[in-house]
């Protein structure tokens, strides 16, 4: 994003760069160039001095060369014609006697992202592949991948691929690994590099010589290899055994994954492997490197899903320390909740109880939910702890405890009695919607066992006018009607009042409809009401189902050591759903010619435009800037082409949304500030045929729905559909990030 005021700076630098006095003084010259790079880093548009920088590349000063090349790689796509002038110098450097200069020049040349550069880099790359210095070969091998990327989807050069395959036997370990990486990118369309028996065995033999990055990479590639026989399989596993104890946690995890996948038919081998990596994983979990510790904890949780007892004897390792960052504490609490068994339950609960009074409300609530989770197995102890917590009379604790109780009563009916005794008095300490709903639900369903239930509900009925959450009112209606069935005398009067209020005064449609519904139901007679409302009060089978969630190792082995366990399964599903569709480089104008023109639209939207398979493809033009006046004029002159609602919870972060929309080339014309009611935003976008899309987003937080209205200046349904699905994707992602 070019900032204001960059013109002056550019002008000044331009002058300095072309000043012969400065050019003569090596240090001063370099200093000016450094300033250019510094401004570039800060985001100023420095493409104005391209010509001068090209001149500066013809120097013997390596530092200056490096800086200029860095500059050129950044701005070459903007000034392709000028960049061609630099090619000459680069080509000359490619045959310098110093291997470092050769490597540098080749690397920079391959990184110039501009059309037409391919013809110049082909020969230097081929020479580089046969260079005697492995430093140059490393660069050349990756250069092949860069060149292929520039070509876009053009066909694969068979000779080059063969050359790369033969370089897998290179002496230098980094060249070997780079070959794999390069082949993988070049052959992406055909499913990546082929790992056959000779290659696999060759790689296995080279493993000890590779550095940690190489080892991790090769382990990943070996996943693809299917050993012919059981014997071969076990030979491979024996060979790789040492890597389960590598000093690099990344390699350990990579090796673990390979073992789990290769041995997918031998559960005992898998268990054995998981026992072996217990040590390294625990070490990572207690290491000072917090981020690594976080990643390890995520994987520990993954393992616990299949082998609940796996870390039980090490439960103390997962006790939180006061100074640990928030994210580690939350992970540890989850782990503790999952590794509980008969022996350690006492200590774990004792520890968790300590966390419940933590200063951080978030963490305290997580600990309470964890106790709730353990309560499904060890009900009595947990309910006792939770009841004690109510005694603290803290808002954020009480609300979570009551929510935990609600879930617990549903799953473990045996604790109903204890819960009912604990409830009186809670209502004073609950203010938020979730907590109120939970409390009201409990009072409604189990009201006959709680002596003062009608009086608590009566308070809620009294204050219903000032109640802000519609969900609470709905819950209140249902609960009061239920309680009326079991204790009619105490409830009849206030039920009447509540129904009256809901039907006559309430402005929220859903609540009013619910009120009317119950009113009509009551008219049908009390027996009918009982038949409709008195459902079972608990469902223990649900809990049993959840307990059996022990998943076989094979169900997650392929996700191990990827981002899936880090993000959590559900979130990962939404993120990765569109991963394939994200192959466009949205920045860098003028790069469209070689940016792979992958579909920006998710698969499902294509079905709508099936008659014309490709007409649905939509390319939004970057930098479509409309003025607010023009937008307003157009907006009022057009009719709404499409309107829909989109589920949305909570508030919007305008910055995030704006950022995300920019990625898909939708410009924000105007937007309310965060937290405004109702919240509105106006967006504009233009596709490559000049069709304008004007959009209004309207969010009424109470309905937790976002209303989307789109107007279009040319009536074309296919592009409209694509546009809407892109917009939905963005909104969906933003929604996911928040929740």
């Amino acid at each position, binding site marked *: *994003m070019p900032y204001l005021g960059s013109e002056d700076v550019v002008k000044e630098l331009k002058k300095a760069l072309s000043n012969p006095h400065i050019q003569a003084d090596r240090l001063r010259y370099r200093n000016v160039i*450094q300033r250019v*790079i*510094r401004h570039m880093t*800060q*985001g100023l548009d420095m493409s104005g001095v391209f010509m001068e920088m090209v001149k500066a590349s013809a120097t*013997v000063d*390596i530092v200056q060369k*490096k*800086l200029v090349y*860095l500059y050129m790689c950044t701005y070459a796509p903007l000034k392709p014609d000028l960049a061609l002038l630099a090619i000459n110098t680069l080509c000359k450097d490619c045959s310098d006697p*110093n*291997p470092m200069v050769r490597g540098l020049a080749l690397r920079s040349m391959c990184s110039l*992202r501009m059309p037409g550069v391919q013809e110049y880099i082909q020969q230097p790359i081929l020479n580089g592949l046969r260079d005697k*210095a492995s430093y140059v070969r*490393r660069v050349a091998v990756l250069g092949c*991948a860069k060149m292929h990327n520039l070509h876009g989807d053009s066909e694969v050069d068979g000779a080059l691929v063969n050359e790369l395959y033969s370089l897998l036997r290179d*002496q*230098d370990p980094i060249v070997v690994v*780079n070959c794999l*990486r390069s082949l993988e990118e070049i052959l992406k369309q055909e499913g990546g590099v082929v790992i056959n028996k000779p290659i696999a065995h060759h790689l296995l033999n080279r493993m000890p*010589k590779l*550095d940690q*990055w190489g080892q991790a990479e090769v382990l*990943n590639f070996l996943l693809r290899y299917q050993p012919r026989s059981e014997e071969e399989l076990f030979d491979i596993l024996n060979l790789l055994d*040492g890597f389960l104890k590598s*000093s*690099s*946690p*990344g390699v350990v995890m990579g090796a673990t994954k390979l073992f789990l996948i290769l041995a997918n038919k031998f559960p005992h081998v898998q268990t054995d492997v998981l026992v072996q990596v217990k040590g*390294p994983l*625990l*070490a*990572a979990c207690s290491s000072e*490197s917090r*981020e*690594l510790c*976080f*990643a*390890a904890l995520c994987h520990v949780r993954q393992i616990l899903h299949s082998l609940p007892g796996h870390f039980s004897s090490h439960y103390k390792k997962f*006790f939180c*320390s006061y100074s640990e*960052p928030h*994210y580690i504490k939350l992970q540890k609490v989850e782990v503790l909740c999952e590794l509980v068994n008969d022996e350690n339950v006492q200590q774990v609960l004792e520890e968790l109880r300590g966390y419940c009074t933590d200063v951080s409300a978030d963490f305290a609530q997580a600990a309470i939910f964890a106790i709730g989770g353990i309560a499904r197995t060890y009900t009595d102890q947990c309910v006792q702890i939770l009841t004690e917590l109510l005694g*603290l009379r803290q808002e954020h604790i009480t609300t979570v405890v009551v929510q935990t109780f609600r879930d617990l009563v549903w799953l473990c009916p045996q604790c109903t009695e204890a819960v009912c005794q604990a409830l009186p008095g809670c209502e004073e300490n609950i203010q938020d919607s979730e907590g109120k709903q939970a409390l009201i639900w409990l009072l409604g369903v189990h009201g006959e066992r709680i002596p003062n239930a009608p009086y608590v509900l009566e308070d809620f009925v009294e204050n219903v006018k000032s109640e802000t959450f519609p969900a609470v009112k709905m819950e209140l209606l249902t609960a009061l009607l239920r309680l009326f069935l079991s204790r009619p005398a105490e409830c009849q009067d206030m039920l009447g009042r509540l129904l009256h209020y809901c039907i006559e005064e309430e402005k929220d449609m859903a609540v009013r409809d619910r009120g009317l519904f119950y009113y009509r139901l009551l008219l049908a007679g009390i027996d009918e009401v009982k038949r409709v409302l008195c459902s079972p009060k608990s469902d223990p089978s649900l809990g049993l189902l959840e307990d059996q969630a022990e998943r076989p190792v094979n169900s997650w082995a392929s996700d191990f*050591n*990827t981002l899936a366990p*880090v993000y959590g399964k559900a*979130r990962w599903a939404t*993120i990765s759903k*569109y*991963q394939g569709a*994200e192959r466009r*480089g*949205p*920045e860098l104008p003028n790069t469209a010619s070689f*940016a792979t023109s992958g579909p920006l639209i998710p698969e499902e939207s294509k079905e709508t435009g099936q008659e014309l398979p490709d007409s649905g493809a939509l390319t939004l033009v970057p930098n479509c800037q409309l003025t607010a006046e023009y937008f307003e004029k157009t907006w009022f002159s057009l009719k709404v082409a499409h309107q829909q609602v989109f589920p949305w919870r909570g508030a919007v972060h305008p*910055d995030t949304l704006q*950022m995300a929309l920019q*990625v898909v080339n939708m410009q924000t014309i105007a937007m309310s500030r965060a937290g405004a009611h109702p919240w509105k935003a106006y967006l504009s976008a233009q596709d490559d045929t000049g069709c304008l899309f004007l959009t209004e987003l309207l969010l009424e937080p109470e309905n937790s729905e976002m209303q989307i209205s789109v107007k279009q200046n040319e009536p074309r349904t296919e592009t409209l559909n694509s546009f809407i699905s892109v917009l939905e994707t963005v909104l969906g992602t933003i929604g996911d990030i928040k929740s």
Partner: protein
Amino acid sequence: MIGGLFIYNHKGEVLISRVYRDDIGRNAVDAFRVNVIHARQQVRSPVTNIARTSFFHVKRSNIWLAAVTKQNVNAAMVFEFLYKMCDVMAAYFGKISEENIKNNFVLIYELLDEILDFGYPQNSETGALKTFITQQGIKSQHQTKEEQSQITSQVTGQIGWRREGIKYRRNELFLDVLESVNLLMSPQGQVLSAHVSGRVVMKSYLSGMPECKFGMNDKIVIEKQGKGTADETSKRRPSAPAHSGKQSIAIDDCTFHQCVRLSKFDSERSISFIPPDGEFELMRYRTTKDIILPFRVIPLVREVGRTKLEVKVVIKSNFKPSLLAQKIEVRIPTPLNTSGVQVICMKGKAKYKASENAIVWKIKRMAGMKESQISAEIELLPTNDKKKWARPPISMNFEVPFAPSGLKVRYLKVFEPKLNYSDHDVIKWVRYIGRSGIYETRC
């Protein structure tokens, strides 16, 4: 693979930005700043997903380093890479601070160019990198023949971590056993969890391609040797260990630098290697049994009414009286509504720091088997906040000149068959430093 690397200061200003792949745009730099650095709430996770781009970040003092990618990568590997990058940078210019980064930004761009290519990690060994980085800007024409040949030998050599033809007038090596001892203790003095994570760091200035062998008092090795001698001398008392004087330790798990031959370690448990030149981490280990806890903290907190607290903390040093612990710091948390504190301590200096909500008690030196005490009266402002004070644990920092795990270096032998220097000619230094990791006592 990594699409881009960004470095920010605490305000979120970009200090360094390097993009390696097309799929990462300039707007990614801003996205991270807005969503993570400027976010109101505390950091939720070191991995953040914004618009399907994953941002991995680590923080060093108040500098943020973020690696960005759109691919499904291995989280552990990316973090390891970021750590490695911090190490490399630290090796070049010391502490990673805003000032240092600004002053060395050319060097950092150079490093980033060599360490990653097209988003793939390349050479990351500091020693090997030195050949490629021209911090002072050597002119290419003036580069000596020798340097050029160094590059070639470096890049063709079979051993990636050491180049050939290294010569020193004085063959010297330094071994540092650096341990950090972690403790979580209950108010009653019961150890909830304790572990030592240690590193053996070696600085070698040795000529040629020396073969080294490292020995320590690892339980398994000692037992093995003990059995050997026992078999020879008397079979009647196999239970009596031959090295009865020396204690051995049980290592829970250990990992080695790439140069150590793992096959030999697995079969005979001997640690042999050809070391890289200069400083490197030979091994990393963890123990949980028989840890010598250098200090014991005994807290006593009494609430006198609603507006006063009495705190008494005793620390006892638990090691040989001849040794001295240094840089001792005890941090006693105080409630948020503290209005005034009176402190009396027998040794060192203690101060109430209102900004940190703690009494910080510093002692420069303390010998073993000693005891010291601090007592404080804390005046509280009356509040109607019903929230109870959470009583954070008392934490401690210190440095002791021994290894709390009990690890001892038994030998480090050097053989260089081609050059004429022997094990005896090498000057060897061994040092033990035990530091506190997270050393907390609940109160």
